């Protein structure tokens, strides 16, 4: 192998460089100008995102343990954009941390290394790479969850996350070991050859599935979600809810559609059950929530349930719809979290009641929030509707009409609690509403991009067709 191969993983390398660069730059920048680190980080990551759009050929290097193709590359870009928006939204917060508490750049470093982990995870070619990527993506988040060292709930979130994560990875490793036992290799391309449906394989698969479901927070592996989201800093919750969930969904989909394809007769039922459980539990819990972060946590669980409707098909259609939906979901959820972040940053208020009469004081924020929620609820013409509709179409294409029906019932339930927020913002009156405030440039930008995404992604159909073509890679 020659060194030119390394260029094929330039995204990873670039990200790593940026991370190290930030680490070093901290040494040279004087205490007073520390806040400029934020601009630097955003700038660098912006470049990284931009570079990501250049084409990379399909390849499989290091004996197949690292592979990439257009879909994977596309998805990495989606993740980049997500993280970029996230950076914009959390810029003010982190700046305040750096200036106020004199914290270093560890936030960016952890964030980026976690993202790096996801890169490796989704372009893994064997279970080893996959495992390392998984851990690399999980551990920094655990650290980030506990980032607010002075807040008890933050540490609690951290400990809950790290312990559950450890358990999850332990379980999935145990499963992987069984798969290794049956197939005699940890390389995907070998496993595809030899895998057959027998009890040990199924057991291995289920354990493995559980391990990943933990990251996607599917019922019954979702318990950590709400607490961690509530305790962790909003940026981190937002990151957990969109980026890491998205990446996990993606890799799970790839593995199930490729190496576990022979087990489809098992996992289609499995997914059926889990999907129903996830949707119902997520929605039923979301109904009652008062804390916005917790509320969004459960809503994101429910959304994961909807994603499974695409997963159940195991076809190109499924792949395309899932990627499409995840992309839209990232934008919508980021918008919602962004608003929550902006408000809690200015006022420290995170409860639904505090949002009463928000529209009268901060119309723009409320509109963004409303769009985001409608997108999550799947109301046309915003993007979320198309994402959901296509997922349902995918499920229906396999004849799962009952599942689709129940899913749509869940959409109605979810509409109820999304409307609760809308009600709070638009209809309810409030004696002391959140006063009007102006956001900083970054936050505005972050929200703006999400809004554009929410409005455009659905109506702009070529995008979907493009994804559909890419999806051919895994079928």
């Amino acid at each position, binding site marked *: 192998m020659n060194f030119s191969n390394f260029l094929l993983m330039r995204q990873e390398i670039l990200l790593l460089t940026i991370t190290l660069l930030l680490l070093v730059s901290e040494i040279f920048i004087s205490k007073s100008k520390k806040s400029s680190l934020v601009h630097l980080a955003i700038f660098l990551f912006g470049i990284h995102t931009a570079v990501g759009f250049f084409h990379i050929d399909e390849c499989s290097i290091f004996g197949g343990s690292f592979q990439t193709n257009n879909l994977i590359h596309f998805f990495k870009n989606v993740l980049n954009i997500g993280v970029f928006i996230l950076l914009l939204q959390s810029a003010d917060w982190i700046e305040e941390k750096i200036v106020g508490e004199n914290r270093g750049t560890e936030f960016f470093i952890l964030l980026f290394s976690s993202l790096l982990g996801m890169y490796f995870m989704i372009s893994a070619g064997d279970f080893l790479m996959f495992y390392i990527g998984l851990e690399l993506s999980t551990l920094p988040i655990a650290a980030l969850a506990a980032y607010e060292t002075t807040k008890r709930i933050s540490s609690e979130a951290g400990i*809950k996350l790290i312990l559950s994560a450890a358990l999850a990875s332990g379980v999935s490793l145990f499963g992987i070991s069984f798969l290794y036992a049956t197939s005699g290799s940890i390389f995907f391309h070998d496993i595809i050859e030899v895998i057959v449906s027998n009890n040990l394989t199924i057991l291995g698969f289920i354990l493995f599935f559980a391990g990943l479901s933990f990251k996607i927070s599917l019922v019954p592996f979702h318990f950590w979600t709400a607490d961690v989201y509530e305790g962790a800093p909003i940026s981190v919750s937002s990151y957990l809810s969109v980026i890491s969930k998205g990446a996990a969904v993606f890799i799970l989909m790839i593995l199930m559609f490729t190496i576990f394809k022979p087990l489809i007769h098992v996992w289609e039922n499995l997914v059926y*059950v889990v999907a129903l459980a996830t949707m119902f539990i997520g929605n039923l819990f979301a109904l009652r929530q008062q804390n916005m972060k917790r509320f969004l946590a459960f809503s994101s669980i429910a959304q994961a349930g909807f994603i499974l409707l695409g997963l159940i098909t195991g076809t190109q259609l499924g792949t395309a719809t899932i990627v499409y939906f995840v992309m839209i979901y990232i934008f919508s959820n980021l918008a919602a979290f962004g608003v929550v972040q902006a408000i809690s940053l200015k006022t420290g208020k995170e409860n639904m009641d505090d949002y009463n009469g928000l529209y009268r004081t901060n119309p723009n924020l409320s509109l963004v929030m409303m769009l985001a929620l409608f997108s999550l609820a799947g109301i046309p013409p915003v993007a979320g509707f198309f994402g959901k509709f296509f997922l349902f179409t995918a499920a229906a294409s396999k004849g799962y009409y009952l599942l689709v029906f129940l899913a749509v019932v869940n959409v109605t339930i979810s509409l109820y609690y999304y409307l609760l927020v809308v009600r709070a913002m638009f209809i309810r009156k409030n004696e002391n509403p959140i006063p009007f405030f102006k956001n900083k440039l970054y936050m505005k930008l972050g929200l703006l991009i999400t809004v554009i995404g929410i409005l455009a992604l659905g109506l702009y159909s070529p995008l979907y067709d493009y994804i559909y073509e890419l999806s051919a890679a895994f079928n």
Partner: protein
Amino acid sequence: MDFTYVILIPLIPLAAFLLLGIFNQKIKPAVSGYIGVAGLSTSAALSFYTAYQYFFEVGKVDGVYQTFVEKTTWINFTDTLAIDMGILIDPISVMMLIVVSIISLMVHIYSRGYMKGDDGYTRFFAFLGLFSFSMFGLVLATNLFQIYIFWELVGVSSFLLIGYYYTKPSAVSAAKKAFIVTRFADLGFLIGILIISYYTGTFDFETLNNPEGSAILSWASTSFMGLSVITWALILIFIGGAGKSAMFPLHIWLPDAMEGPTPVSALIHAATMVVAGVYLVARLFPMYYFVEDGFALNIVAYVGAFSSLFAAIIAITQTDIKRVLAFSTMSQLGYMMLALGVSGYDGHEGVGYMASMFHLFTHAMFKALLFLGAGSVIHAVHSNYLKDMGGLRKYMPITNITFLIAALAISGVFPLSGFWSKDEILVAAFEHNKLIYGVGIFVAGLTAFYMFRLYFGIFWGKDTQYKHAPHESHISMTFPLMVLALISIFGGFIPFSELITADRVGFEAHINIPLAIVATVVGLTGIGLAYVFYKKENDLADRFSNAFGVFYKWTFNKFYFDEIYLFVTKNIIFNRIATPIAWFDKKFVDGTMEGIGNKTVVISKKIKGIQSGKVQDYAFGFIAGVVVLALVFIYLWTN
């Protein structure tokens, strides 16, 4: 011959209505009165011209009166079935044109005096215009559906005019009652139309009435519960007619309708609208006669006979003069119905048909006269009740005379118009059905009695002391009285049997002397009794009524029919049906929807314990989930 111009007869009043209705506020009362009168007189002139044209110029082609139809499609159902709008000129429609235009014109003139100073003056004339339009349209209708349409319209104008004094609760409820009862009857009418339209595939009177037409010949083709469906249809249609013509038991709205201004009662509830039912049956007479050997026609006869008797009895005891007249109207309408009921079709057989139309004509005149007279009296003494009247002959001579003429006419005294028409009816009844004849003759006596009870009660009897002395009404009111009086006197000499017969071929009507004598005698007896009882103030009447006791009480309360209806509407419809449904809707239907929502919330509250916040519970859930899934999918669900 082209009768297209006839279309103007209804349209002119309509124009007046629109004019007065839209510029209600702008127009001065006096002007609006003139507009109304002018419009109506034009229509009246046209009607007379039409009648002349039809009867004496072009109508008769080799001895048979033709039907002239001008129509245009109003709405298409299928390529065969459609509703047309148009005008149909034949003897009875022309006759009705005359009746309606005369009465309406008279009432218009009369109202200019009667309604003077009323703040709804313009509105009143607008409504009169609307009514005249609808009534003309009704009589000119070319098909069942058109007649139904105008049927509804006269209904609503009657509603509006009864409720003219809309601040009076009694007036409002009377109007509602009138509308709803007739509407209920129209339900039958409508269903009848539906049946006819389905089985004969047409609404047109010509097609339906053609004795050789399929509608009549193929009546036996389909039957329902032992009767031909066509018969059912005819019965249902008759229910509609009975509703408008206040036949028993749908009569209850008519007495209350007297809440309206008196001219209205004269126009609508005595002369024109209430005869619509009779007109409808006459309109469909061939069908009634031929289908299933006139089964439906017999029903008409008996209902008519009973109603006339029933009403006549009640009329005796009423003290509100307008109500007396109302019941008298009902009784006379019953007369016409029974005449139709006992009529045959061709030649002299059809005397009943002729007589009914004849009586319709004469009755319209003298009954309108009676009402207008009563109106003039009420105008003078400001009360409807006999007890407040008496000895008025001194104060209002013209009213007195004209009223007397009308009373004599309705009692069938020779040679007034009433005598001739009533006589023909009795002849027809005698020839076909002795029982009905008996009823008829008895009713004739009763009629004479209560009419003169009324007459004496108003103009003779006790000399009431009036606070401010009543005086004869203004000329605008007395003029119509005189006109109508003249017609009531000489109307009888019109040779109806030449003009209006079931088979359109005139026949030679001859007085049946013995019957005529009997009738006259009976009539005079009635008058005599009334003279004895009421000429001078005495307590005979009271003693009699006491003697009759319960029967009197029942009669006085109109046999408690209002109460029965009240019970049905209030208790059955409202409390027994509507209330439960409202409750059911709130509690059950809505409750289910509510329940679904609430249950969801309850469940979500119940299961919140799962999220206990203990990381170890989470781990347990995790592992348990894995184990269960593993067990299920390895051992149980292995397909």
